[in-house]
């Protein structure tokens, strides 16, 4: 079995006395696109910053390409492409100056690929970064991280603020980049449709802890749902359903999302005395949202909506 590209053991990070990442045991296998999901403040960016060696862990260890992330050498850093959150670039530089600045230190720099990606996003080499749209800036960022042909690509919310066309261009670029199975991608995102399209694995963080770490296919198979009609709400009985992720009351129906549903789960659902029980296959977006909603509680910002209730 190949060594994981990223490995963390009992990784924890505090800010002051507040733990942000807790006991994270993570393995990112090579040659796959791994998506890191979670709510704002779940610890995704903190984890990525530790992986990139930009933040020291409070305790535990983190290895990237078999090297301690706290002491990444220049050679190791050369093999990693990192797109920071918000596609930060120096606004007073022109695109070609940005490329010249970025290529310093890299032994390999694919100028043709850089030009191709920049062209794909409709950007001229003479454009000033400060005058580019957010999507175009994302394009330049992507071109900068892909031009050195990295072994590992780490993207922190790459589609943030992008229009649909730019998002599609970004996704297509990533699929093409990781398509040969030689390169590894770790990306964090809130855009579940994009994740479903490009990711091989799913990592889901809640409150600094890793709740899901599996392949996309496995995740989709193991998270299922039930729709129950005319059911009386008994929170204790609902909570007793094995593997329950979320229960939502919508209209006169109760929707349950469960993990690893089996006969025991089906029996527990039967005991809720619903007029009808319907097993459902959930779309990926709803599967993930079920996990995330456990953390957030009420669905409506107003808090008085009758549209749903979380158990």
């Amino acid at each position: 079995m190949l060594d994981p590209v990223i490995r963390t053991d009992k990784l924890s990070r505090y800010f002051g006395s507040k733990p942000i990442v807790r006991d994270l045991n993570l393995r990112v296998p090579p040659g796959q696109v791994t998506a890191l999901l979670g709510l704002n403040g779940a610890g995704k960016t903190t984890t990525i910053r530790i992986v990139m060696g930009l933040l020291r862990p409070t305790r535990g260890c983190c290895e990237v390409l078999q090297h301690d992330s706290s002491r990444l050498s220049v050679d190791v850093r050369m093999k990693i492409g990192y797109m920071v959150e918000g596609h930060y670039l120096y606004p007073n530089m022109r695109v070609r100056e940005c490329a010249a600045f970025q290529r310093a230190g890299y032994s390999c720099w694919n100028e043709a690929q850089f030009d191709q990606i920049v062209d794909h996003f409709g950007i001229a080499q003479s454009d000033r970064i400060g005058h580019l749209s957010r999507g175009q800036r994302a394009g330049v960022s992507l071109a900068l991280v892909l031009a050195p042909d990295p072994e590992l690509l780490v993207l922190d919310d790459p589609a943030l603020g992008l229009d649909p066309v730019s998002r599609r261009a970004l996704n297509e670029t990533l699929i093409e980049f990781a398509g040969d199975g030689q390169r590894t991608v770790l990306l964090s995102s809130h855009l579940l449709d994009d994740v479903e399209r490009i990711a091989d694995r799913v990592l889901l963080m809640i409150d600094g802890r890793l709740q899901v770490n599996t392949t996309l296919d496995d995740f989709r198979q193991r998270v299922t749902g039930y729709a129950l009609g005319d059911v009386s709400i008994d929170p204790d009985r609902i909570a007793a359903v094995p593997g329950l992720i979320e229960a939502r009351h919508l209209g006169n129906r109760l929707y349950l999302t469960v993990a690893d549903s089996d006969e025991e789960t089906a029996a527990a659902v039967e005991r809720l005395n619903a007029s009808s029980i319907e097993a459902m296959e959930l779309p990926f977006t709803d599967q993930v949202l079920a996990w995330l909603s456990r953390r957030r509680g009420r669905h409506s910002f107003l808090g008085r909506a009758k549209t749903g209730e979380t158990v």
Partner: protein
Amino acid sequence: MSSIFRKELRDILRWLPLGLFIVGLLCWREIPAYSYDCSRHSSSLAFSMVIGSSLFALALGLLQTHFDLRTDARGFLLHRPIAVSAIFKGKLLAGFVVHTLAWLIPVLWAAIYLESIGPEKLPVTWTDMLLPAVCCWVSFLFYPASIWMACRNARWIGTKCLPLALPPIAVMCGLSLDELSDTGNRSQLSIWGLILSLSIIVLLAAVLWKGVRHAFVHQTFLPSQASDEARSWPNVVGLTTAAVLVTSIAAAIPVEFLPRTSSDVQVIARVAVSDGQLWEVEETWPTPRIWNAEPISRRARRVSHDEPSGAFQTLPDDWTEQPLANLYQVSVPPTASSRKYQWFSQTASKKNGDAVNLFLRSGRLYVYGQYSGLLAVATPQGVYDPSETAQGAFHGLVSLSTAASIDVTRSMSLGGHRLLADQHGIYQLNFDAGEIRKLSDLPAQSLMAVLPSDSQAEAILLSVNNRTLRRFQLSPIDGSQPLPSSDSELVKATYSYPLSDVQLTNDGVWELPDVRSSWSDTLFVASLPDDGVLVVSNVNSKWWQYEFHDAGGNATKSGQRPILASTPIDTVSFFTMPPVLIAFFGAISTFSQNGHPIDVMPARSITLVIGHALLAACGIVVLLRRRVASKSQMLSWMGAGLCLGVGTWLGLLASWPGSVTEPCTGCGRRRRIESDRCGHCGAAWEPIEHSGPHLIGPRDLAVHAVRN
């Protein structure tokens, strides 16, 4: 590194006009307009420009660092195949270039301007800008200090700003270089001062370099504050030095502003001569002392060769004092300074309508009008028009600008035609007549005149060359009438005596004991009724000596006396200083006591210093209890506390923040979050309980799948 350097340079070059404006404006303000401004213009230029360049360096460091400390900008900058230390060096180099341009351009402009207007208009050259250049260069230390401050993790703005306390020390040392180099060849102490100043600048630069490098390369990665990575020796040394400095000054300010009761007077101890007898006088003056104020009280005791000193007694009203001529020891004129034109003296000129200023360069006196350019060049051969080629030069020129008078507590300005002396004789310069007269062929290193008064008819000129003291009778050149009395109402009102053309008559020669040392720049000489002289000088910092000489040049009696402290030692202010400094100076004073009757370290001071040291050490112990310090760390910090005082507390708090702890599941006591094992029971961290379901690994390969 070059790409980083270019990027950083490009980023901060936009601030260059701001720096040019600040430094240039301050430089322009201090450019001398009149010849009198040229006496200390190099120092005033340095002082003004260094304020501007320091502010610019500070702002530059903050501006260059602030934007790069944002999470996204920092990630973009640091994640590249370039070592972090190289990124730091590129940043520092770019800052150095921009800062240097900001002060170098005004300095070069000023140097060209000064060179172009001098010496016809003003006694200035381009070398006058060397001191400002050195000081501005030193002020660059504000730049790494501000980066250090920005990169430091600190919970309180006060400790975050601590690095900024270090550069002002270096800048002050830079400014002192002018003073020290001016007098560098006169005193061994000044040479040591010069070496000390340069050493402090180099040391502070090294500490700042190491400290800011550590802050940028390590602390920006936000390691746990209590971890070893968050500290380094330059970090600890730099912050503790700054903390001790800030604490000492902060504590001294309230002490200085405490309302004073008993010490609102100043007690002056000095020697005096009356009726051929030597006296020790103790005067009490009000504080602040106004120039024409009278002492509150005056007591004295006679110094006798045969008897021990008695107690001070109030003097009778008719007790009159004889003027003591102060002969300053001058070896050679100051030449170590970068300034080519040395301010020499000022003299009156009726022809010019105002005073003229004399500047010395290469042994020649350049005479400038107060509001006009070069008027003449004076040498022993004569006074030349600027258009003429001057001949000859002075060697070791000194001037007599003050005179001893009946009011012994104040010096009297000597106006009129200036008396000069060098290794080839004594001269009088009459600028209005355009002549310089040689009064004597005897060499002199220092001069002093005793003016005629109602009680003393004769005017006397004293000169010293090596160990030879000469006395001359000073009389008008025409000899028709004596020099006017210094007791006239006009002289007493203005404290200035107009000296006319005079001639000298030899009146006596004495060989002095070889007592002059670094402690004794001044000889006090008094003429005695028997035509002899009394010579008083300091032996060292503790003792002075006297020697009576008769008219034949023989020493008749001599002795040594302890120097009485002029002002009482304020023991309370001792408490604010680092105990090791007080102990050091106290030990030096005690070892050089030699039976001196004044106790330099009174018991109260010793108690305060020891109490301060113990208090600091105890505080360190309390602070270290939260920091899980090793035995060697505990001992080191306690030693620092004992030596440096309570300022060490701030240094410890700044360089070693307290650990964040959580309760241990093994023993229940608080344990540090960054340690893998409990420091008390050795337990590892318990795995965190999962809340809710979680999926780990594909089902067919699942390690486990926990259900809630």
